[in-house]
């Protein structure tokens, strides 16, 4: 059985060059495993072998970032490894940043899977957790024996292109990608345990940390509505009958733009809703209830507004991801700006 080839990156301390006073030590490639590499060799068993170890001073890497990255990448490239391991760096800040930086570079520039490990409060963790798998470690090297098998196991899974489970199963720091898994206990029991911990002021870990939402300040008011071109944009799913763009009833991946020049009224014969998240009966009876074309036409005739824009934009805001919504909004906004629209009435359901 052929073994996977691994290159291991460690700092001057773990490379037994010296501690802080040797942090300027330039990158150097040695054959075979060094320091913690011995533990990795045991963890890999007969599945993988460390062919080379790169030892690099933390200051040298961080103070010569471009040169250091290029130097180390060249060393890795020569070895043609299947997997790259960096660290673990525990709570050593510059070592953590170097590990994250070089692991990320190896993945993106050489296309070789990489794993590193560090303590959650290591500055490298927040910088790189969404880019590379960072196995969670304790804050000092006493945890080496526990963390090495986790890093080795995750690395082998990556090399074999096996499905990577949720962070809590695999032991990596949450990386912004939510993954499903079957917990040991059902949700109601987990809730009770979490509540009891919270009530007794014991530590507990939320299963979903609250995100911080961006708040968008409203635009300045339109000074003269009688000259303004007003567009209608909705997340209420109003579409021409038959839903020509096949907008999904939930988790929409697209939006539609529909021409309404000359249309005074949206009727049950011509429009309907594709939205799966509310009672569709009243929207289907009269889609103006969601996209008020009838009232705006009247305003247009009365001169209250300058013009109702010739197109309305529609999607389904039902379980639709924030990422998709952002994309739709960017695209729709660009089109509206290009078409000289002054203001938008956004209707939701």
């Amino acid at each position: 059985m052929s073994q996977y080839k691994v290159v291991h990156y460690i700092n001057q301390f773990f490379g037994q060059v010296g501690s802080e006073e040797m942090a300027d030590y330039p990158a150097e490639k040695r054959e075979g495993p060094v320091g913690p590499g011995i533990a990795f060799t045991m963890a890999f068993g007969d599945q993988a072998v460390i062919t080379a170890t790169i030892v690099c001073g933390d200051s040298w890497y961080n103070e010569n970032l471009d040169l250091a990255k290029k130097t180390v990448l060249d060393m890795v490239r020569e070895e043609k490894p299947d997997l790259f391991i960096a660290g673990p760096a525990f709570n050593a800040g510059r070592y953590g940043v170097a590990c994250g930086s070089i692991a990320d570079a190896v993945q993106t520039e050489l296309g070789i899977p990489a794993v590193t490990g560090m303590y959650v409060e290591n500055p490298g963790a927040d910088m790189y957790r969404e880019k590379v798998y960072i196995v969670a470690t304790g804050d000092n090297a006493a945890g080496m024996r526990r963390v090495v098998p986790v890093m080795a196991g995750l690395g082998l899974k990556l090399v074999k292109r096996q499905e990577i489970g949720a962070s809590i199963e695999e032991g990596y720091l949450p990386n912004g990608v939510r993954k499903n898994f079957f917990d040991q206990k059902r949700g109601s029991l987990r809730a009770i345990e979490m509540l009891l911990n919270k009530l007794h002021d014991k530590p507990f870990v939320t299963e979903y940390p609250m995100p911080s939402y961006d708040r968008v300040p409203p635009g300045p008011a339109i000074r003269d509505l009688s000259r303004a071109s007003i567009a209608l944009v909705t997340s209420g799913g109003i579409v021409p009958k038959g839903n020509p763009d096949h907008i999904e009833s939930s988790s929409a991946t697209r939006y539609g733009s529909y021409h309404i020049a000359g249309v005074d009224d949206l009727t049950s014969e011509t429009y309907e809703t594709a939205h799966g998240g509310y009672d569709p009966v009243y929207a289907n009876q009269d889609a103006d209830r969601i996209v008020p074309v009838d009232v705006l036409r009247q305003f247009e005739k009365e001169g209250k507004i300058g013009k109702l824009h010739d197109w309305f934009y529609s999607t389904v805001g039902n379980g639709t991801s924030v990422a998709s919504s952002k994309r739709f909004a960017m695209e729709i906004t660009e089109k509206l700006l290009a078409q000289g629209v002054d203001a938008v009435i956004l209707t939701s359901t």
Partner: protein
Amino acid sequence: MKLELGYIDIHGIRFGDRNAVEDGILILNPGPLIEQVLADPHIRQAHLEIANPGESIRITPVKDVIEPRVKVEGPGGIFPGMVSKVDTVGSGRTHILRGMALVTVGRIVGFQEGIIDMTGPGADYTPFSKLHNLVLVMEPADGISPHDYEKAARMAGLQLAVTLGELARDLTPDETEVFKTPRIAETFDAALRGLPRVGYVMMLQSQGLLHDTYVYGVDAKRTLSTIIRPTELMDGAIVSGNCVSACDKNTTYHHLNNPVIRDLLDQHGKTLNFVGMIITNETVYLSDKVRSSDWTAEMAEYLPFDGAIISQEGFGNPDTDLIMNCTKLEKKGIKTVVITDEYAGPDGKSQSLADADALVNAVVSTGNANMPIVLPPMDRVIGTLDYVDTIAGGHDGSLRADGSIEAELQVITGATNELGYNRLSAR
């Protein structure tokens, strides 16, 4: 209030010439049962099918799942205000046909009906793949409105479940369990002193057609937040209006077997003092949301709770109700844990809830409903595959030529249940 549940274990269902339970087998004569369903002129056609665990069967579009029960002793009957007369239930004795369910299926009303696979990867995500299912497949009368059709299908299921439950009336249970809920005064007993006073805030979906829940026959969107004894739910005081996406709707089966209630009752007097529960709706109007959450927080303080578990139903718009309930309790010093599912996008990279607040710092996640899943073809389909592309979680092309389905987890009935019925979670 004390309720004894007697379980009659069902190990199989077959059709025969009589209705009876014999040696754990439910024998049914379908003719008269179907006649009962067709007594409602809104239903044009109906038939029954059987689906057992492990069989290569796909059931869709699933509306509701109901466990047959019968009230043997004590006031009232199962599904008070819906099928039985209005009377306060939750005490005495109730018999249950355990290990089976009645599943109602029929042409789609909205977008929310779901899928139950009895085997394969989909079966892992729904608790109903582990039950012997009697499936009632219905065809609506021509030209009836969606509201009339939904009501007819809902009532047909509840009534048939009550008919089936009657078969358990005179049987000797295989197992019994006793549940006691204290009066408020009793929660101050010396024996409970020192245990945290824990309450349960149960949010009921009530946004309109296919997003409704009924409490003693009352549409929950016309209710104010109120207290209810936990054992009342075990007799069907709350039933599903077949709501929201299949994955996170509370079916009537879930209401009857609410896991938060069961686990809190189990811990009562041991690690906590289960003071009581509040039910509160999730409506579409801001003023209703404010009123319902204000009322919930006031009641939680009045009872009082030291801490509360809050379960959501549905997603998106009700996320706002969830955040209001949670933050208003927290601001009163009542510590909370919320149970919700996530809509983090198929790639898991998006924000999971439509609303957020830093006070919501203890969340139990029941999984990302947007997770893509491939369901292999099954030998038999009960119902129809006609709507797979349009149900919530499906997309154009979800149903492939070979009968397999590529969709989001959302399509599977009960997959991300927010009562915490399953072990599924996400990180």
